[in-house]
């Protein structure tokens, strides 16, 4: 039987390679939970065996139960009638099965019915679910909402809401966006007010809310009347009860199974989560960063499926007396897709491991502080992880979502005319991919978020270390190419910094961020190739291709290609 875990050699490779010991030791509080829960691991090896077994089940359900429903989910879509949202039949069946398999609370604490898995393992599940049906990821991936409650809500709130998330009884929504507050969330207007007893109520409108019809909603609202920025915003949790009116759902290009709602809050009773005024600054940023990583996994899943469809079609379709797979132009496209996929996956799981580290050390430091114990060492680790994850999260979201668009585009191209028809899955995959570089922050926003890390050279020490290592045989030449990209990067940075022109820097940020990413991913792949022969081709194509692209980026900056932006009004007539 097909299995999206066991039969995906590259995913399996990344799983086997994972070193989560540090993270799991922290997550499992040195395996004390095994005394209380018969399904808690007794040591790291046991934990990793658990992860593997569960991912096998996810791989089975994704390939054999969800994927066969994806086309009907796309066709049927979520429906809106008489003020009620109904999922497509396939979506309902898939959610029901995933709930029965106890997979809806993978990252929630055990005392609330969850599996207490690291985010990295959960992301592997998200990748497979997305591959089976991209729109289902928008519901399965909402486990992050439960996670945010687990992180910041008080014990009563956790007791009230989390068990329902774990069993799949509750699906959630994050209600942030408003008609006039999209990328600029500081402008959120939906108001929260208190009655004389101190109870909170919400009033206002939210738009483009994924699964806004969910049972439990996290809502960003203005608690401080008269304020206009992020410091007046707080986060609330509330039930999707009759006071919330779904005004409409959007008719979208893709991810039809996922309902996108416009919501009207009519004095909806709500509970404040955490501290007032920290809604956007702390909690939503936390949630959003996790959601961005989630979109990375969704992009990866869509890309994997598009590649598989293209490969299968190329082998089956005969023209000029042989399968088109054997035409060099086609095999070259397929290699490009495969190399991009492997590079993406390598970057992705590196990012999610850093996210895990950051979150675990955050919890650890908070705990040590509360116990009045020394925490300097842990704090150092936290600082490092925070710096890295702040760069890697938007970078990964940017690169993987853009790549998903490119891979689905090429996969459709390989299908030729038939790919343009509804009969083939690649048409749906192309439509589903198109949202990934828009929602949870557009690519342009991700570049802004990643620019700081690239300009400040967050990986300087790491790169120095990698350059000094020894690499086998032909890999030495690839190392030289990476060194060359690094020189190009240094030159560009100096140029941009010396110029002291912020609008130039804004436009050049894309080129800079990309060059920096080539170096980081290049080293990830070079290290993989150094211990694993089958990765040599991947590293070679990725690094040589990156060198060519880096030179282009370099030329664009050094030739001041973008200086005409100042004359936009004269050009755009």
């Amino acid at each position, binding site marked *: 039987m097909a299995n999206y875990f066991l039969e995906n050699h590259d995913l399996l490779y990344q799983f086997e390679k994972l070193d989560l010991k540090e993270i799991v030791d922290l997550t499992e509080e040195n395996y004390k939970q095994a005394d209380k829960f*018969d*399904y*808690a*691991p007794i040591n790291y090896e046991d934990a990793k*065996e*658990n992860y593997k*077994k*569960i991912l096998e*089940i996810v791989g089975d*359900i994704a390939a054999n139960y969800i994927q066969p429903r994806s086309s009907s989910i796309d066709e049927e879509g979520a429906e809106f009638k008489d003020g009620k949202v109904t999922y497509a039949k396939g979506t309902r069946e898939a959610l029901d*099965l995933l709930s*029965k*398999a*106890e*997979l809806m609370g*993978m990252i929630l604490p055990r005392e609330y019915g969850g*599996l207490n898995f690291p985010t990295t393992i959960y992301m592997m599940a998200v990748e497979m679910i997305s591959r089976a049906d991209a729109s289902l990821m928008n519901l399965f991936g909402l486990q992050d909402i439960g996670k945010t409650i687990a992180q910041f809500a008080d014990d009563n709130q956790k007791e009230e809401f989390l068990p329902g998330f774990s069993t799949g009884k509750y699906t959630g929504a994050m209600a942030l966006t408003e008609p006039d507050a999209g990328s600029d969330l500081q402008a959120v207007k939906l108001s929260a007010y208190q009655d004389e007893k101190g109870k909170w109520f919400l009033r206002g409108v939210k738009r483009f809310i994924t699964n806004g019809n969910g049972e439990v909603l996290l809502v960003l609202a203005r608690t401080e009347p008269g304020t206009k920025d992020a410091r007046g915003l707080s986060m609330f949790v509330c039930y999707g009860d009759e006071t919330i009116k779904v005004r409409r759902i959007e008719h979208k290009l893709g991810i039809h199974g996922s309902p996108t709602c416009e919501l009207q809050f009519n004095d909806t009773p709500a509970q404040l989560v955490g501290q007032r005024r920290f809604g956007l600054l702390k909690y939503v940023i936390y949630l959003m960063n996790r959601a961005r990583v989630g979109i990375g996994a969704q992009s990866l899943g869509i890309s994997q499926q598009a590649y598989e469809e293209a490969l299968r079609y190329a082998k089956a379709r005969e023209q000029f007396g042989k399968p088109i797979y054997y035409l060099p132009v086609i095999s070259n496209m397929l290699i490009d897709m495969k190399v991009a996929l492997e590079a993406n996956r390598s970057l992705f799981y590196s990012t999610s491991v850093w996210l895990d580290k950051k979150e675990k050390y955050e919890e650890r430091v908070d705990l040590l502080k509360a116990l009045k114990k020394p925490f300097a060492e842990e704090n150092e680790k936290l600082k490092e992880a925070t710096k890295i994850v702040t760069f890697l999260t938007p970078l990964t979201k940017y690169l993987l979502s853009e790549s998903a668009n490119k891979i689905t585009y090429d996969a459709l191209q390989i299908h030729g005319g038939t790919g343009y028809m509804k009969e083939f899955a690649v048409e749906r995959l192309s439509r589903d991919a198109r949202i990934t570089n828009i929602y949870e922050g557009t690519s342009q926003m991700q570049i802004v978020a990643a620019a700081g890390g690239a300009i400040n050279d967050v990986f300087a020490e790491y790169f120095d270390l990698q350059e000094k290592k020894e690499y086998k045989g032909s890999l030495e030449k690839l190392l030289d190419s990476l060194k060359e990209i690094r020189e190009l990067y240094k030159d560009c940075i100096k140029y941009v910094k010396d110029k002291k022109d912020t609008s130039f820097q804004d436009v050049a940020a894309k080129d800079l961020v990309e060059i920096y990413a080539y170096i980081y991913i290049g080293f990830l792949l070079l290290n993989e190739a150094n211990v694993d022969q089958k990765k040599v081709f991947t590293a070679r194509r990725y690094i040589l291709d990156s060198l060519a692209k880096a030179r282009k980026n370099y030329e664009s900056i050094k030739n001041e290609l973008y200086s005409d932006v100042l004359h936009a009004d004269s050009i755009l007539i």
Partner: protein
Amino acid sequence: MGLHSIVMVKQVPDTANISGQVMKEDGTVNRAKLPAIFNHEDRVALELALQIKDSYGGSVSVITMGPPRASDVLRECLFMGADEAILISDRKFAGADTLATSYVLSEAIKKIGKYDFVFAGRQAIDGDTAQVGPQTAEKLNIPQITYVEEVLEVSNSKVKVKRKIDGGFEILEATLPVLLTVLKDAAFPRPYKAKRIMAYKNAKTLMELEKLTEGNSLLYIDQLKDEYQTKKLYIQTLTMDDLKLDEERCGVHGSPTKVHKIESVVLAGGNHEMIEPNKNGVSYLIDKLMEDHILG
């Protein structure tokens, strides 16, 4: 009210994925060449038993007779929600046909004690005989309903089911205890539950524990068994001696079925005949088909 179900399950070769030298010279199956899977209709049988437990309380025991590696399906039963799994295994059971198998299973069921339901899949995909269920019911001297499509009503003493028959269905009622064999569409088996997978992944049979003690003089089998029992990870294992069985009725000795001959049949097209698409043509076609015993 609490109803106890016993489900008979079987590990079978994955006949949907046959390749290479699966058949041995003597006409028996070379199991080493085939991946072993959980017989699907048995999974459906377990699902029905679990549904009865969900609705009325009680418990579900699962038994299988097979080689030591049949423990795989027993663990899978635990992953789905079975309360107890029992392996019946002995070298002396090898080569059993349906008569010998139903003898061993019925004796094991008697040993388990009180039960309200015995469930089994209609048939296993390796032998396709559909005999083990009915023969077991006979030996237990309880009513049986085969080809069950749906369990309609359950009470303390009775069950009403819908049973598939040629060209339709019939609704039957039986008193408990009863043996039901079920069709694949009777229910959709629930998935393995994440927490149970983690909790029971190390559940072991006696043979598996013995393997652990091999070459390790510090481990004693009784001690290990106790330890696994305390952790609820011991899969009860019964041999011929445990069941005090008549050796003459087990395995090859107790199996009158003999494989006479195995042929490899190659399906190939032969001569064909054109028949006019009219009334006479159809009559002629029917006559021909009756001559060949395809119709009638």
